[in-house]
């Protein structure tokens, strides 16, 4: 089943084009990471998917038009827009009461269960909670909703590493069940590398890379090249090169190499799967705005 389907999705704010013809298809049960620099159009894309802004082009989320059917869509989809959107005047107990009151698919006992594992008191006002606790509360509310699609826009912004780790751990262990779909944007890509099933890079309103994590792992290789092999390695046209601790780290797209060359790589140095962050830098520095990461010429500067 397709959860999100977009064709030629466009959105402009005045003369700024935030989304420039995005085609997108997210199947059920995927955890998609939408990665991009500031102003790339991530939040705009999510807002369009959630029915928060009007757009041009075709978009169906769970079979509905999000702009005209937001309230019905929100029975099956939910989102954490940012860390700081829970109303600060509200008490924790009121938040539970309210969501239980308006959401037909909210399981209050489940939310109480999640909260029992935290230090959050029912009588506290949200303004009295720390940033991490507010996120825990929001996650507890959202995870207790039996939704088909969960959208997270920078959910862990400004949180320390412990809260961040805990956030994704509970998401995977207590929420995700392979029939639910999660779309997440974040700048802390290292946190989600082992969470995602799919990866999408977006830059200047366009999708520049779209692959599953299996593809990512089998297609890209990073080689920490022995100093004497650098010239030979560069001849194989890496898509990116950087220096670290005096060694050249070269990133290769295996689709651009022929069979023989692939076997050569191991001889050139230490081979490993690159981090999403490194591939992201490589893709963005090479061809901003292009559709794929292929054919990167003049990779290393």
């Amino acid at each position: 089943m397709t959860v999100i389907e977009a064709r030629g999705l466009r959105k402009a704010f005045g003369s700024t084009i935030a989304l420039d013809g995005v085609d997108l298809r997210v199947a059920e049960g995927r955890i998609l990471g939408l990665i991009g620099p500031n102003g790339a159009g991530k939040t705009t894309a999510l807002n369009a998917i959630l029915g928060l802004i009007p757009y041009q082009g075709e978009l169906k989320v769970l079979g509905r038009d999000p702009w005209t059917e937001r309230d019905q869509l929100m029975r099956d989809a939910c989102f954490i827009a940012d860390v700081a959107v829970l109303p600060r005047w509200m008490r924790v107990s009121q938040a539970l009461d309210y969501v239980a009151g308006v959401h037909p698919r909210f399981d209050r006992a489940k939310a109480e269960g999640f909260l029992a594992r935290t230090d959050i008191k029912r009588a506290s006002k949200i303004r009295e909670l720390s940033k991490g606790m507010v996120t825990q509360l929001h996650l507890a509310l959202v995870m207790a909703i039996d939704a088909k699609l969960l959208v997270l826009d920078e959910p862990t912004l400004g949180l320390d590493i412990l809260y961040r780790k805990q956030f994704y751990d509970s998401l995977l262990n207590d929420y995700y069940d392979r029939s639910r779909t999660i779309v997440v944007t974040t700048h802390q890509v290292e946190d989600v590398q082992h969470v995602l099933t799919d990866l999408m890079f977006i830059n200047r309103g366009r999708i520049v890379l779209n692959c599953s994590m299996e593809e990512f792992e089998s297609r890209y290789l990073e080689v920490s090249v022995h100093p004497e092999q650098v010239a030979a390695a560069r001849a194989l046209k890496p898509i990116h090169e950087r220096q670290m601790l005096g060694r050249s780290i070269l990133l290769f797209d295996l689709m651009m190499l022929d069979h023989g060359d692939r076997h050569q790589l191991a001889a050139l140095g230490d081979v490993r799967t690159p981090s999403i962050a490194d591939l992201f830098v490589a893709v963005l520095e090479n061809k901003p705005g292009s559709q794929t990461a292929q054919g990167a010429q003049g990779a290393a500067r």
Partner: protein
Amino acid sequence: MSTQSNSMPESFDSQKIAPAAMSATRPLYWSVRRELWEYRSIYIAPLAAAIVFLFGFFISMVSLRHRMHGAWPLDSAQGRDVFATRYELAAALIMGTALIVGIFYSLDALYGERRDRSILFWKSLPVSDLITVLSKLAIPIVILPLLSFAITIATQFVMLLLGSIILLGSGVNIATLWTEASFVHVSLVLLYHLLTVHGLWYAPLYGWLLLVSGWAPRAPFLWAFLPPFVICGVEKIAFNTAHFLTLLQYRLLGPEDAMAPHSAPSDFMASLIPTHFFNTPGLWTGLALAAVFLAAAVRLRRYQGPI
């Protein structure tokens, strides 16, 4: 799909409500409750006004009792008058407080949620913009009138109790205070006035305030009150007329017969028959205008995000 309320904890009374009705009334009910949680001044301010008034009433009664020791023991008619004017004063004070609360509430209702970004949380729940705006309009035109009515009645009851205790043994026939008190009269006229004037006649005013609060990029108070002011001024300079001002005055003061509680308590039953009020064309144009403002506010909320 249709687990609906099955997953709800037992304690929720709404399980009895049919699912179809639930989908419409439940979000509305909880949205109104939410407003009362957020804007506690809706009930605290009229309550505080009532308490302050009761304190003043207490002092006035005690001083009345002291003066009575000297010269003139009140007869029961005088005693009634003493109460009647004070009842009206109590009603006016609480009503005025509710009016001010209503104005400030309406101006913040759709602005506050954008300013503190919580609109993103509200929009993440299956509550339509229509329900949200309706619940916010219900506060000044339904909840506040009913609330100020209840508080006024309670205040008047406490006044009667307090007055009776203080005046006990002063020669005033306490029993007539209770039996003849224009209590029922005044309260019925008051309820009528609150529901018609504050509920229906003022609806376009609250609709306007809500619309401005949903639209204003900042300073909704200024945006709500400056344009009418400017229109009056421009009209005066350009055409040397004051139609807009007259219109505003008519709207603020209401049709004569609806501003009833002080006038002619003797024929109050007649004034309760609402045909006269409902025949006023101003009421219907006002309600139509309120509907336009409401529709615009609903549509606007769809487009609005945090500011």
